[in-house]
């Protein structure tokens, strides 16, 4: 017990422990078993509550090991600095509009496109493709991960195939996909779904495989059936992995979309951007980039919110 040890040491010397030392001892010890010892300390030494300054200083140094909490706007600091430098360079003429339009020009053009209703149409088309593909891919990835993670036959038949798929870049599949599925919407959604499937599968499968053996023992001693084991131990245990996969998936679906929207289409953000490239309209390219960024961040935010709710039982640094 550190308290008694430290106490004896200071009793042997001529001086009493400083306020800082008392406060430190108090904070080191779990409240439950420290209480009786603290009351005996109070008898010998000045009451630390009279000097809030000492306690406060100590508390700050204790906390320094993990970063403090960032406010909701804190994450915007970096982007804001970049934006300011960018606008300044454009206004001072260092940055030619032929290479990159200024943020304000892009904002104006974006607003115009939005008011004319042009943008909404492109956005809806893109979002439909991306989220249909995402939905199908996530469900497929999850189901495959469960079959593969919970049965031996499943692992033998599925895991190798997904690993091979993972090694092949999605874009390299496009030529074959066009031959098999045509150049329409079906091909685009199928490509997005297969690229989304991989991160969901990999992360969910890994989480299922690493479930603590101790919980398996518990399941046996309380007599869980196979299905109860899956529902109460395997699935909740794999949930953190699934969310990691999902967060990768929501950005993957938009990445795949950009390339796909350059093939046989007259609608979508990707189409808007590739046409702008042909005409050298950097402001529209910037608008497209900003839209991708907003959609990516928003999707990620929604998944994180959902994750935090589902995993609220955990106490984790940084949440």
């Amino acid at each position, binding site marked *: 017990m550190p308290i008694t040890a430290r106490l004896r040491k200071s009793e042997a010397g001529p001086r009493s422990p400083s306020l800082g030392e008392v406060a430190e001892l108090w904070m080191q010890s779990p409240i*439950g078993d420290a209480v009786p010892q603290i009351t005996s300390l109070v008898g010998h030494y000045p009451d630390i509550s009279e000097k809030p300054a000492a306690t406060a200083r100590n508390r700050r140094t204790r906390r320094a090991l993990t970063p403090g909490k960032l406010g909701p706007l804190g994450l915007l600091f970096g982007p804001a600095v970049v934006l300011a430098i960018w606008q300044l360079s454009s206004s001072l003429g260092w940055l030619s509009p032929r290479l990159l339009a200024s943020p304000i020009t892009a904002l104006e053009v974006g607003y115009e496109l939005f008011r004319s209703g042009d943008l909404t149409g492109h956005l809806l088309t893109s979002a439909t493709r991306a989220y249909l593909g995402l939905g199908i891919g996530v469900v497929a990835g999850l189901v495959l991960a469960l079959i593969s993670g919970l049965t031996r036959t499943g692992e033998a038949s599925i895991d190798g195939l997904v690993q091979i798929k993972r090694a092949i870049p999605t874009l390299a599949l496009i030529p074959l996909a066009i031959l098999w599925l045509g150049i329409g919407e079906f091909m685009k959604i199928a490509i997005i779904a297969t690229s989304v499937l991989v991160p969901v599968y990999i992360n969910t499968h890994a989480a299922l495989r690493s479930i603590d053996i101790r*919980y398996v023992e518990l399941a046996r001693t*309380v007599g869980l059936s196979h299905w*109860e084991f899956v529902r*109460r*131990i395997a699935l909740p*245990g794999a949930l953190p992995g699934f969310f990691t996969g999902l967060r990768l998936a929501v950005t993957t679906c938009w990445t795949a979309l950009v390339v796909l929207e350059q093939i046989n289409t007259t609608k979508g953000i990707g189409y808007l951007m590739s046409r702008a490239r042909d005409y050298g309209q950097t402001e529209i390219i910037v608008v497209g980039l900003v839209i991708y960024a907003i959609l990516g961040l928003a999707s990620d935010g929604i998944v994180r919110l959902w994750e935090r709710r589902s*995993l609220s*039982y955990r106490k984790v640094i940084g949440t």
Partner: protein
Amino acid sequence: MNDMTFRGSSIHIRNLTRKFGDRAVLQDISLDIPPGQFVSLIGKSGSGKTTLLRALAELDDGVDGDGIIEAPDNRSVLFQDSRLLPWETVIENITIGLRTSDSVAHGTRALADVGLAGRENAWPNMLSGGEQQRVALARSLVREPELLLADEPFGALDALTRIRMHGLLIELIERHRPTVLLVTHDVDEALVLADRVLVMSEGRIAVDQKVDLPRPRKKSDQRFERLREELLVALGVVETA
């Protein structure tokens, strides 16, 4: 203590051996435990006490060995860690695997029995180590086991909490009367709790000691001290009695 019916069942072990590779961890163990007896199993680490407990819990498939175990199917295990599922609430953890319709009512009562009434919907992570272990105790007892197998259940707790847990365990055991096998490395704990202490050494039961001291037991009692001395000698901690 309103219900004094003996729920415990007897245990019979004959010629039990267990091997990890070439090393014989249990060597030809035979043991009879009458219904409702509280047996403490002590021994140095590696003496085979946990292996014996895991054999009784049927948690040792894949381990080489032989012998006959006659033990009730209705048993529960108390592990050293509370082994609560972090993603389920306290009451869900207690009633896990129960299939009766009134399991929640039983679980609530068991939770009150261990002094945690009202914490049904807490997450295990919100509880202290001692509280988590009390929930684990409730999870074991709500099954009304005929045999309770406990593997150093208080080993990770601080001294004060451990004393409180001893009192709680004795009280609940007196009410439910299961047969108990408690593995511990703490001689005092064994003597405070058990009707009988077995000392294991190199895979055998070296000492089989009845403890018929009146309860509640005091460590300052002369007979208690004498028994402790004997057991410490048997464990090879103290040279002579």
